[in-house]
Every structure is written in C-alpha cells, then in structure tokens.
C-alpha cells in the first residue's frame, strides 16, 4: 500500500533557532497589521444582505456547487503559491533561510481564529460587494491547503536524485525545461498526495468560513456551510440532515472523479525503476484512458502542456559548478541587515500593540486556557489511538477488509466534521451533558480517520516474511504487539497522529463553542477564548489567543512529534 506519504516537515530540528524567532516576529506583526486595518475599516461596512440563504432543500445543489467552486479557486491559488514560493525557497539559499521557518510556523497558526480579520480585510478591498467575503473564504481555504503543499515541493526540490540532475545539466536543459521535465515530475507524487490531503482538510474550512459573525454583522455566502449555520439558528433538524446528505454526495464525487484518478495517475512519476505491483486503475482513470473522445481531449491537453514545459526559457546558460563556492560575504551581510531592519520594525509594532491593549493577566489567562485545550488534544489522541490502532491493524492484515475499509476511512477524513456538530449539540442539550466533557470529542471527530487509514496502510504494508517469522517463532499476545506489529506500523501511525493532532487544534476554535438556536454551549479552552473574542470583536484578545495557540502547536510538534517521527524514520523504517 503506497498510498501514504510521510508528512512534509521543513526540517528535523527541534530547538528553535534564530530564523524561527525572525519568522514568528514577522508573522505576528503581519497578523496585527491586517487586524488593525480590518478594525479601521470595519465600521462603515454594510452587510451584504443580497445573499439571503434559504433552507429549502431545492437550493442545496446550487449551494453545493458554490462551495465546491470555492474549494477549487483556493486550490488554484495554493498551486500557484506552491510553485513559486517553494521554488524560490529551494533555489535561493538566502531566501530559504527565512522562507522555510515562516512556512513552518504558518502551518501551525490556527487560521480559523483569524477568519474575522481576513473577512473584514478583504471586504475593505472590495467595499460593499460579495466578492470581498468570497475572497476571504477562499483565503481561509487557501491557508489550510498551501503550506504543506509548498513543503512537499520544497522537500522534493531539495532531494532531487543527483544523477538526474547531472543528466539534465549535461544535456543542457534550460531552467524552464528543467523545472517541468525534472523537478515538477519528481515532486509530483508527493505534491498530489499533499494536495489531496489539503483538499480533505479544506472541506472543513470551507464550511466554517461561509458563515461568519463579526460583532453584530453576519456574512453568509451561499453554500453548504451557511445553510447549516442557518439550520442551527432556526433549529431545523431536517435541514441539517439534508446538508449532510448533500455534502456526502459532493465528497463522493470529488473522491471518485478527482482524488482516486489523480493519485493513481501520479504513480507514474514515482521515482523507482522497478515495476511495483499496481492496484487496479480507478474507473474514472480507465474511462479517461479508454474512451476515445476523452482520451483525445486529455492527450491534446497533455501535448500542449508538454510543449509549454519544453520551451527553452532561461535567464542564463547552464554553467559548471564549483565544488564548494564560499557564499558572498557582502551579499550575506546586506541580506541579514535588511532582515534585521524588518525584524526590528516587526518587534516595534508588536510592542506598541501589546502595550496598549494587553496586560500580563491576559497572557496568563490565555496560557491557562491553552493548557486545558492541550489536555483535551492529548486525551483525544490517546483515546483515538487506543481505539483505532487495534482496529486498523486487524483490518490492514486482512487485505480484503483493508481494501474495503481504506477508501471509507479516507472518505471520512475528507468529510467536514463540523456538519455533524449540530447532532452532538442537540444530544448534549437534550441530555444536559457537561459541555466541558461532551464538546471535546468534536475536536477529533474529523481527524481521527487519519490515524485509522495510516495504520491500515502500515499494517497492510507489513512484510509477509516478518509475519511468517513471528508465527514460526510462536510470538503471540502482547509480545506480538510490542515486538512485531507496533514497531512495524509506527512510522505510519506517527504520520497519521501528526495530522490528527494538528487538525484537532484547529477544530478547537469551532468545537469549544456550539449553539443550537438560542442555547449556547461553551467549554473552557483556548478555542472558546478565541471564538468569544471574535464574537465580541476584541482584536487584541484574538491576536493573543492565536499567537498562544500557535505557540502550543509549535511546542507540541517540536517536543513530541518531531522526535517521534525522527525516531520512526531512523530506526523503524523497513528496508
């Protein structure tokens, strides 16, 4: 089962270095800047009431299309960002020094917390028009997709096989040809896989970003997300189920028409010269390959793309490389000086902002709430592990079952879990549950599937001879788990758990506060803190909450996941 790619990390290092701090300062300053602009332009805006949502299920197909289009708009933006940003970071040593830590930290910023400001920011760019809110929604999805795609491309560019690199240079490919003939194809499997994972995550954000309340103003973009939001307001249980059904169909189509064909197609770019056993092509890909009309269309598309990639565009002729050229000291000095100025400006802005609006008590409160949310995440990951690892192993070791369940798990991972929140809320209200406890599972509702399908992938990739050896030695019971299967699936498990825990942090913002009509449920935690501050229009607290949460995510990743991941790849990767 090769359908699992390891997550893209910029580096294996754990301790923050100077450039991490630079990156943090720059990002926080930009966030504050955007927030300030947003606040300044907030008052004169009118809510675009033109886009009233109706709960009539007849409108749902139209809403579904609008939601899907938003996804694809964001996807195009993410691809453009990936191809430029990652390439720049990989090709320029100096740019890479700062671009990569920035990416690393952006990946950990819970962007939902900042939705308020991006909405108002984009609204101020297009005053009085829906386009602003549309762009804000697309931007939110973009931020959920772009970072790991860029990482994936960056990593591929940094690990080009040296013989292919030499062949490309020896045959004097231009920079443009090299990019499309060598670099992009080599990066393709990882890029496609990460794009698909991004899309899966994106459904969650598209649903969350269509209906946004800032202060007294509510923006509702026509789409499934705002449909659900309206259903919540009007306590319409049937409408919630209609929305879930519509989303199921959308994701099913996306899965069958795009996800599977693309992943199968991208295996052609896998860098291996041995023919591996290939799974059967998905029906959509077969259709494309075997239907005359579709084949003609796709091959015409392929030909023109080939010609496009074959253009001899280059800024300069290929040169031989000096074995180790010491980098220009002067250039470095200028670069670092410019960077220092930028950081000083950023720190100043942060200081001015923080001094005027925040006290130390605010920071302590946010930190304590962060600890509560951290506890939730840890408990959930442990619970999900205890439940899904044995099930995943059981399924993965039985190929027929594994093959049947694997697509289902991937499908569930793509399904926006926030559509199910109303059902939970309804149950909690009905049975007067403690919201501190019962709102918690919502955080992992959508992301637990990453653990399941990675474990299934790991177990089904577990070598048959090792299984036979274990059986021959009559290794059984707990010893079998401890010595045989758990180490074997560990790298896969870590991959899934990283994704699950990252998603849970993000989900905290929408899952620690829930409402059903006038009833509002709140759990204590950093997510609720951010959500409340957003609803009250308290910019300073939102910034603080987002920064503290990013800090928690980064610390959690560096202290736990990266060492585990490093250990897994060093010691437990087979072959």
């Amino acid at each position, binding site marked *: 089962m090769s359908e699992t790619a390891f997550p893209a990390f910029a580096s294996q290092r754990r301790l923050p270095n100077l450039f991490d701090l630079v990156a943090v300062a720059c990002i926080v300053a930009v966030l504050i800047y955007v927030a300030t602009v947003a606040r300044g332009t907030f008052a004169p805006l009118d809510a675009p009431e033109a886009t009233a949502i109706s709960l009539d299920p007849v409108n749902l197909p139209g809403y579904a299309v609008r939601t899907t289009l938003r996804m694809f708009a964001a996807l195009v933006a993410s691809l453009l960002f990936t191809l430029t940003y990652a390439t720049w970071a990989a090709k320029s040593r100096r740019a890479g020094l700062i671009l990569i830590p920035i990416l690393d930290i952006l990946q950990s910023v819970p962007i939902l917390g900042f939705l308020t400001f991006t909405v108002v920011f984009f609204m101020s760019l297009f005053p009085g028009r829906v386009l602003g809110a549309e762009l804000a929604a697309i931007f939110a999805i973009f931020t959920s997709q772009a970072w790991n795609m860029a990482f994936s491309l960056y990593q591929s560019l940094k690990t080009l096989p040296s013989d292919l690199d*030499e062949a490309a240079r020896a045959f004097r490919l231009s920079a443009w040809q090299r990019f499309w003939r060598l670099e992009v194809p080599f990066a393709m499997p990882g890029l496609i896989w990460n794009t698909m994972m991004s899309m899966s995550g994106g459904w969650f954000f598209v649903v969350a970003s269509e209906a946004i309340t800032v202060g007294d103003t509510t923006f509702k973009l026509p789409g499934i997300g705002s449909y659900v939001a309206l259903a919540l307001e009007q306590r319409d249980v049937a409408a919630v189920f209609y929305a879930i059904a519509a989303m199921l169909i959308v994701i099913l189509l996306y899965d069958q028409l795009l996800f599977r064909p693309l992943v199968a197609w991208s295996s052609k770019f896998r860098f291996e010269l041995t023919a591996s056993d290939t799974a059967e092509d998905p029906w959509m890909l077969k259709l494309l390959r075997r239907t005359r009309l579709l084949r003609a269309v796709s091959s015409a598309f392929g030909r023109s793309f080939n010609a496009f990639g074959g253009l001899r565009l280059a800024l300069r002729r290929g040169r031989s490389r000096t074995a180790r050229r010491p980098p220009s000291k002067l250039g470095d000095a200028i670069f670092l000086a410019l960077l220092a100025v930028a950081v000083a400006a950023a720190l100043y802005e942060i200081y001015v902002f923080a001094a005027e609006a925040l006290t130390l008590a605010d920071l302590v409160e946010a930190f304590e709430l962060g600890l509560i949310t951290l506890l939730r995440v840890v408990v959930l990951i442990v619970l999900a592990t205890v439940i899904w690892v044995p099930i995943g192993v059981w399924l993965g070791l039985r190929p027929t079952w594994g093959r049947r369940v694997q697509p289902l798990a991937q499908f569930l991972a793509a399904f926006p879990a926030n559509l199910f929140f109303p059902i939970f809320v309804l149950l909690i209200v009905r049975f007067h549950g403690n919201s501190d406890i019962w709102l918690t599972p919502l955080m992992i509702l959508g992301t637990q599937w990453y653990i399941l399908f990675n474990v299934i992938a790991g177990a089904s990739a577990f070598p048959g001879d090792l299984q036979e050896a274990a059986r021959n030695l009559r290794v059984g019971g707990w010893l079998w788990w401890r010595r045989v299967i758990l180490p074997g699936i560990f790298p896969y498990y870590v991959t899934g758990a990283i994704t699950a825990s990252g998603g849970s942090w993000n989900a905290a913002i929408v899952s620690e506060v829930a409402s059903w009509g006038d009833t509002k449920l709140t759990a204590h935690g950093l997510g609720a803190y951010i959500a409340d501050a957003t609803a009250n229009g308290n910019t300073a607290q939102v910034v603080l909450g987002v920064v503290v949460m990013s800090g928690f995510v980064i610390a959690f990743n560096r202290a736990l996941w990266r060492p585990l991941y490093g250990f897994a790849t060093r010691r437990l990767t087979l072959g």
Partner: protein
Amino acid sequence: MDQTLAAEALLAVRKVRQSYHKDSSSDLLVLDDVELELRPGEIVGLLGRSGSGKSTLLRIIAGLLTPTAGEVTWRGRAVDGPTPGVAMVFQSFALFPWLTVSENVELGLEAQGVAKAEREERAEGAIDLIGLGGYESAYPKELSGGMRQRVGLARALVVHPDLLLMDEPFSALDVLTAETLRTDLIDLWSDGKLPIKSMLMVTHNIEEAVLMCDRILVFSSNPGRVASELRVPFPHPRNRMAPAFRQMVDDIYAIMTRRAVAPKAAAPAAPSMSMQLHPVSTNLLAGLMETLAAPPYNGRADLPALAASLQLELDDLLPMGDALQLLGFGALEEGDLRLADKGRAFVEAGTDDRKAMFAGALRSSVPLAAQIRHVLDERPAHRAAAVRFRDELEDTMSPDYADETLRAVISWGRYAELYQYDEEADQFFLDEAE
C-alpha cells in the same frame, strides 16, 4: 608527445587539480596535476579504484564541475559549462522514470530547440541503431537493466556528440548483459556507425578497459594521479583468452597493486591515525583467507584468476587485499595476494581465538581502533562520543571517507569485541560485563 597529433586534440586537460575545500585545515586533494589529451578516433579508458577521482575528472570534462585549478579545453576553447559536443552516459542510467523511451531520447534535442518532426526522426534512428526498436513507448521501469542502458546510450548518441563520456556504464549490469552491450557498442564503433569521434570511459574493471580501449590511463588513489599510461595494441574484436590479452590484464593488476603498496613502503613503521579504511566485512575477510589457504591457491593467488573465480570486481577484491595486508594477515605483491603466517594461523583457529587474533591485529595495526579503546579505558564511564573521532578524521579526509573509515573501525572493533558502538547515541562504549 607527437606535436601534429596534439594539435588536433579534441579535448585537452591541463594541470587539473580538484580539492575538497575545508575551512580549517589544508585542502584535501582529490585530483592532482592531471594531464590528458583526447584525439579523434580513439577510445580512452580511465582506470582506477574508487577514490581515485576518475569520476570527478569525467564530470570536470563534461563541464558539470569546475576544477579548483588548471583548465579543460574543448576544440581549443575553455570549458565552463556543459558543452554541446559532449554527451554523457551514466552508471545509474539516469533515465527519467516519467518519460517514455523516446521522450527520454528526445530530451537532449528538445533542450537544443530541435523541431518536433526532426526530433522524432532522429530519436527513431538512434533507438533503432542501439537495438531498441519497438520499445519507443515503454517506460524505463518496464525495461531490464541492459535495455535501460541502451536507452542511456541512444539518448547520448542522438545529439550527435563528438565525444561520448561514459561513467562506469556497465558496472550496474550483470555479467552477461554487460558483455553483450560492450561488444555491441564496439561493433558499432568499428563499423563507423556511431555518430561520434571519440569515447572516454571511466571504469574499475581491468578486463573491460583492455577489451574496449585504445589507451588506458591508470589512476592512483589519494590523491588521484595518472600513475601510468598504456597503449592497447590489439585490433577489434579482441579475444579475452588470447595470451597477450591475459598478460596485459596481469600487468595492469601488478601496476595497481604496486601503487597500493607504495605509500606503505615509504613509511612502513608509522601507520597514522588518518589512514583511510574501507568497511570490508569481517566475514568476507575470513572467507577470503580460507579460500587462499585451501587448494588450488595454497596460500598464494593470482589476482585476475582469483577475481574471476570469486566473481569479484577489482573494486571489491583490492580493498579486501588491502585490509588483509594492513592487519598483517596477507600481502599484495605484484598482482598476487599471498596469505601470511598470521593469516594461516587465523584460518586454523576457532571462533574465540580468531576474535582475539583480530583484536590484536587491530590494536597493533589500526591506530584509530587502538586509540578508541585507549580513550574508553581511561574514561570512568567507558563511553565516548564518535563525533570526536569523526571530526579528527575530517581534518585529513572528506566527510564521506571519514564516514567509511569510521564504519570500518566500528565493524571490525565489534567483531573483535574490542569495543561496542551505540548507533542511536553515536557513542563507543565498553561492555561492563567484561
């Protein structure tokens, strides 16, 4: 050298030095003062052991690397990047797995901006010439190793280069496939069917060099220098079994083993800390000594014959011989490998005695191993980070070689139970129980 011939040289390499740059200490030389001229109509072989810098030289000639000093001229003009008249064939084939055979072959033409119709025609011609007709639409992963290297050859030939560079082109292939490909290539060359003027190939296979080349430059290692230059007088096709052919192979073995011995002869008593070692498995060493002790060798083997019967390449066999010589178990002499008395004793000993003998040999002949043990003995905790030894080695050799040397010392020390190594912590330690 003949002046008229020199004037026609396609390629001239003058006083080329390549050093691995290290900030702290003096530069580490990979290539030292290499001179080479290449004239139309000849096949020249660069023969040497790994670490002799021959592949580096090939990359300098291809314009992929800039030498630290000296210059390379192509038709009288200095080379400062990949040159149009030079094409290269890679050891690993370097085929793009996402391109079909014909797309791979067309790649170089595409880079030159050749129109699509002409590209396809020329690619078709090159593919047919090299015997791959019918495979145009296959992807590399569908082909066998030999087929893949044929694609590599077609891709290089299709751009009609004047000079074809080959970097150990047959060493990744099995014996039979490699032989077929060699003879096919030589046949095409002899019949004048190849659109090239000259070939330069890197190899560590002596027979291959004698079979294919008109001129052989034998490289010595550390730093890489041209140790000697030989002309191969035989016409193609050559017969491997001909006595003159065998004699030449024998002679080259002798040259190469002599060079390996030379530095030791200069300073026999002081093997230094900075000695470069190859991580040869102790199992292989034991096996080799047992083979040497038994008939038909009875303690002394002719290297070509030994290599043939064990199906080992020169690059596998010589490091083993070096290791035996270093540890005092054997000696390399004029193309022969002789088992020393210590080696014979080792063969007759049981497992524990063997380990003890190996430990003794390590302590007396490998200063690095002796020092590691010494440091561990002195420390109360009996642990020492490997980093410090690696750093020390890197003062005098490249990181790759330092790594190899350290791996050799780790593996030999483990076998001899001289010390243990903890990979996770990258530390040497002594087992407390002992």
